[in-house]
């Protein structure tokens, strides 16, 4: 049950996604780039609050902030979301092995019950 994925990176992604405000920002950026001012409008958040959320998203690699002039648009990078999928996939061999054992246990149970019926 060893987890071979970059846990630090993954934990930052999970932490970043744990906030409804940050998920809302990501959903907005999924529609196209926007800068801090444009993001502050629909979310009823102050500029410093938006900046703080963006920093977390940037650190998690979910958002890229361009240095382009004063406009500094933010764009979404979906790559870390794909790693979450990989995180869940690590459990696949564990569960598959369990169900193999369930299968052979069911077979054992059934032959046992048949044998019991013969005894009656």
């Amino acid at each position, binding site marked *: 049950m060893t987890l071979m994925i970059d846990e630090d990176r993954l934990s930052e992604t999970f932490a970043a996604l744990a906030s409804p405000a940050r998920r809302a920002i990501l959903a907005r950026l999924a529609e196209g780039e926007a800068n801090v001012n444009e993001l502050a409008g629909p979310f009823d958040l102050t500029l410093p609050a938006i900046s703080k959320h963006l920093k977390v998203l940037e650190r998690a690699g979910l958002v890229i902030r361009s240095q382009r002039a004063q406009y500094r648009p933010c764009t979404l990078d979906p790559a870390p979301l794909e790693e979450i999928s990989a995180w*869940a996939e690590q459990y696949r061999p564990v569960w598959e092995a369990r169900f193999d054992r369930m299968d052979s*246990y069911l077979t054992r149970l059934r032959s046992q019950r048949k044998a019991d019926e013969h005894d009656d």
Partner: protein
Amino acid sequence: MTERDVSQDALVIERSFDAPADLIWQMWTEPEHFKAWYGPDGATVPVAKMEVRPGGSRLVCLEMDTPGGLVQMWFTGEYREVAENQRLVYTESMSDKNGNVLSPSEMGMPHGHPATTKVIVELEDLGGRTKMVLTHTGIPADSAGAAGWAMALNKLAAHVEARSVR
């Protein structure tokens, strides 16, 4: 939504068993049966306490014989949905032997690692045979609305895929 969107943050496994649904249900809900198959290879399940009702608790111990001695891992959780022979939903977190949840950082995991996961078992009786669908998802440590989180993420992923022309 495509299959890929759904699997974005969840593990989904579909299996068929040559046994009726009520027997597969017992595999999940009766400790005696559960212990027979659950432990990963090389592990045993010395403890499986199950209060199989919505809000009921569960406590499972996995025991492994390692070169360094016996190692025990405890997992606790809560049953969320219990529809006999059809659907079972429960949560799972690492814990101590008394069922006190251990934070991911106490377990040496970095902050933000999902402390709780959710397991969904769906059974469909195919007349003596049973189709079983297992869904295992991560829940971020400090998110109250886990389902909402998964949905939001799926929507976001679908949106991104629809837009990206890569």
